[in-house]
């Protein structure tokens, strides 16, 4: 593992990050957008772990941040899903294009 340079790990994560970004923009379905967000969060987690491992091995901060991000992600997804279900009841769709009442 030590032969893998840090930058490669980071590039992996940033590829994942921008995949998430692309997915977030290109999808109209809220659930798939949520999945894109999960990808983004995971890419961040990889970063934290990688930094912890490569640059600051004497600490555990990266681990903790990952831990908290995962926790928050769990909370976020549960709320997001609740909202999506509620929207589905109201609009009978979960397409973001159709749920645009918050404008002007």
């Amino acid at each position: 593992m030590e032969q893998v340079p840090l930058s490669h790990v980071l590039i992996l994560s940033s590829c994942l990050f921008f995949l998430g970004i692309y997915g977030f923009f290109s999808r109209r379905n809220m659930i798939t957008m949520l999945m894109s967000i999960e990808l983004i969060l995971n890419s961040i987690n990889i970063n934290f772990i990688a930094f912890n491992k490569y640059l600051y091995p004497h600490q555990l901060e990266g681990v903790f941040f990952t831990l908290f991000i995962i926790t928050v992600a769990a909370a976020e997804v549960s709320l997001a899903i609740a909202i999506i279900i509620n929207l589905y009841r109201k609009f009978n769709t979960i397409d973001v294009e159709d749920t645009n009442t918050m404008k002007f």
Partner: protein
Amino acid sequence: MSASAVMFYILGALVLTFGVLTVFTRKIFRAAVYLLLSLIGIAAIYIIMDMQFIAALQIVIYVGGIVVLIIFSIFLTHQAGERLPSRLPKHLLWSILLSGVGLLLATHILYHFSYKPSIEPAIEHSVKNIGTQLIDFRSYGYVFPFEVVSILLLAAMVGSIIIAMKTKKN
């Protein structure tokens, strides 16, 4: 090149492949499954990096919790086999442009940045160490964020129940 390095590259390729599939597939259920696989790949990378505890969390929470939740919500809101509608070309163009530019930018920086690792002796990322520091209330202890996050989880749970609850129509 050691075996773990090879493993890393293989896993990285897998994670990316599944990520791409997640983002590009037109069937939502498949997208969820590809996401699942991608997340498992990430867990494997954690293991390679000697972060067994995180890998375990990844499996338990992401794979076992979040993705399952997503799949449930797909069941609740979709007919099976439904194809997702495609994007408007204008939007696609913008998203490709932005993420492409972002990626290039990030890659550029990452390549040209000189990283300075600390020289202090490493400590083991064992569950024991993690657990000790997590509930430690002295300096560098994480007991306070830990409690806050637990409250946050509780609040999220209650909140999502209330939001998702059927309201009585007048």
